[in-house]
């Protein structure tokens, strides 16, 4: 029995062992399968995120490449919106640009035109307000139920049929310069791809910053070039030195402001014993003023020789100049003719500041403020009717000071003007001083008065002293 039972017992044990091993093995296999599945899942996920990362990288590379070769700011903004729209399934979105205190919709895709016309948001308004508070990409799942946005009809108009929006602020130099709104049906797309959109926004920010910088540089360079051209024009027009006159000392100077004003002075031979002295100021500044100055000089230099009446010269210059001037451009001139033989001085004033005539013997001064109007205001008839001329005999020691408003309107840091009184005072105080040192004292006094204040206009002077 035992012998018979033994193999049975053995068989039973073996069976149990087999079952046990099978169970363990099966469990292992199941676990292994699970493991394999899990690994597969992981690999899938890795592949997914890898392809996402690859897509992001591609997109970014593409964005960097495209965004960095755009020349104008408008083209850049168009491209930025395109990059975003390409990723958005609904192909619907817009770009709001900050102008003053408002955000204005400048570019859009898939949005109703009527909605775009209305799309001008104040800083705190609707979705714009929400993004400005968050200063980060903001997903609104359903704008129709969002507490602060449902009350903003312009946002509803922009969204139209779609209910979800991803709003991305474009921060440049710490300030929101623009906002990209992307619309969709489902929030999940924006949630899944938030990193991609944010990366794109960062790149857009850098591109905008670069573009701003380049534009500033280009503008600065352009302005610098223009300033140099204006300065060159003025330098070409102004006399090189002072003429040597029998019985008279004469000197002139121009200290141009950083943004060159339209000041001009000149000595023009009228006859063997007569010299024309002219000082003037063209309205406006820079190159446009410089070009007008060139015209004035050319016409004056062709009209002055041989003409003994200063008002006739100015009337002719006005008549010739008027048709070629842009409306709104005018020129003030003070024109005097000095006769070195009989020591007479004749003058006329075309809207220019009155000259100062100092009579040394009496220690008195007078302002030469005869009637007249600036050139370029009237075609001729009224100009000729109004303008007057006078003549005076110059005695030894008498002085004539011609100046532009850059002298009298020079400001100090307290925004006080130098003024005509201080100029007259300087002339009277230096009544015995020769032309050149007198001019130096005037400019010194003006410069000292202005102190650290910026020079806004050209400072131009002619000083004549009878010996």
């Amino acid at each position, binding site marked *: 029995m035992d012998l018979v039972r033994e193999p049975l017992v053995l068989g039973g044990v073996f069976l149990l062992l087999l079952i046990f091993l099978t169970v363990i093995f099966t469990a292992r296999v199941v676990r292994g399968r699970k493991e394999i599945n899990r690994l597969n899942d992981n690999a899938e996920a890795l592949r997914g995120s890898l392809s996402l990362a690859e897509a992001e990288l591609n997109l970014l590379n593409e964005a960097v490449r495209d965004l960095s070769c755009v020349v104008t700011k408008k083209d850049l903004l168009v491209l930025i919106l395109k990059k975003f729209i390409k990723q958005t399934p609904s192909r619907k979105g817009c770009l709001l640009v900050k102008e003053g205190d408002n955000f204005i919709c400048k570019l859009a895709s898939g949005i109703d035109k009527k909605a775009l016309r209305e799309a001008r948001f104040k800083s705190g308004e609707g979705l714009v307000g929400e993004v400005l508070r968050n200063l980060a990409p903001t997903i609104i799942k359903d704008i129709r139920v969002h507490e602060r946005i449902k009350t903003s009809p312009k946002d509803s108009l922009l969204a139209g049929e779609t209910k979800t929006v991803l709003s991305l602020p474009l921060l440049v130099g710490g300030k929101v310069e623009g906002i990209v709104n992307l619309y969709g049906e489902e929030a999940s797309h924006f949630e899944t791809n938030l990193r991609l959109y944010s990366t794109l926004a960062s790149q857009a920010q850098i591109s905008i910053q670069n573009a701003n910088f380049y534009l500033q540089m280009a503008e600065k360079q352009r302005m610098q070039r223009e300033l140099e051209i204006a300065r060159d024009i003025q330098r070409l027009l102004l006399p090189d030195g002072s003429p040597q006159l029998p019985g008279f000392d004469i000197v002139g100077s121009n200290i141009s402001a950083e*943004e060159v004003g339209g000041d001009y002075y000149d000595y023009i031979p009228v006859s063997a014993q007569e010299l024309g002295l002219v000082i003037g100021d063209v*309205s406006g*500044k820079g190159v446009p003023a410089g070009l007008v100055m060139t015209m004035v000089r050319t016409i004056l230099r062709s009209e002055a020789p041989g003409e003994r009446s200063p008002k006739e010269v100015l009337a002719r210059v006005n008549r010739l100049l008027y048709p070629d001037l842009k409306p*709104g451009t*005018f020129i003030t001139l003070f024109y005097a003719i000095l006769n070195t033989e009989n020591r007479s001085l004749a003058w006329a004033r075309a*809207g220019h500041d009155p000259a100062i005539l100092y009579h040394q013997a009496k220690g008195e001064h007078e302002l030469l403020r005869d009637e007249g*109007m600036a050139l370029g*205001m009237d075609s001729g008839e*009224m100009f000729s009717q109004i303008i007057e001329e006078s003549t005076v005999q110059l005695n030894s020691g008498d002085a004539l000071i011609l100046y532009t408003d850059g002298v009298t309107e020079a400001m100090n840091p307290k925004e006080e003007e130098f003024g005509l009184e201080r100029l007259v005072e300087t002339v009277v105080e230096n009544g015995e001083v020769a032309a050149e040192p007198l001019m130096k004292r005037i400019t010194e006094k003006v410069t000292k008065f202005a102190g650290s204040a910026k020079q806004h206009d050209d400072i131009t002077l002619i000083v004549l002293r009878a010996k």
Partner: protein
Amino acid sequence: MIGCEISTRTFDLGTRIVQVVDVSGFLDAHTSSQLENTLNSLVEAGDYNLILDLKGLDYINSASLGLLMGIAKRVRPQGGDIRLVNLSEKINKIISVLGFSKVLKLFDQTKEALTSFK
């Protein structure tokens, strides 16, 4: 930099509509374009009867004065004009030195300027 303020008032005189443009502050290189835009849009809209009220104007640059002349040239052929009121002593002086007072009509009060358009 001190800016300038510009606003417009409309007066219906029955026979004519007159636009009064109030300008205060500093009219300089930075702000003259504001006045230019205001006046240009009025003229483009067919408003040729203009009064510039300069009460509170502290400074005017040559470009802004030129602008007024340019506007006068544009509106006069249309039967309109640009007239100035409330000029400070300083601005009055600038305008008379330039001879602008010969070509632009100046008034002490807005009321007088309005009546002059009737």
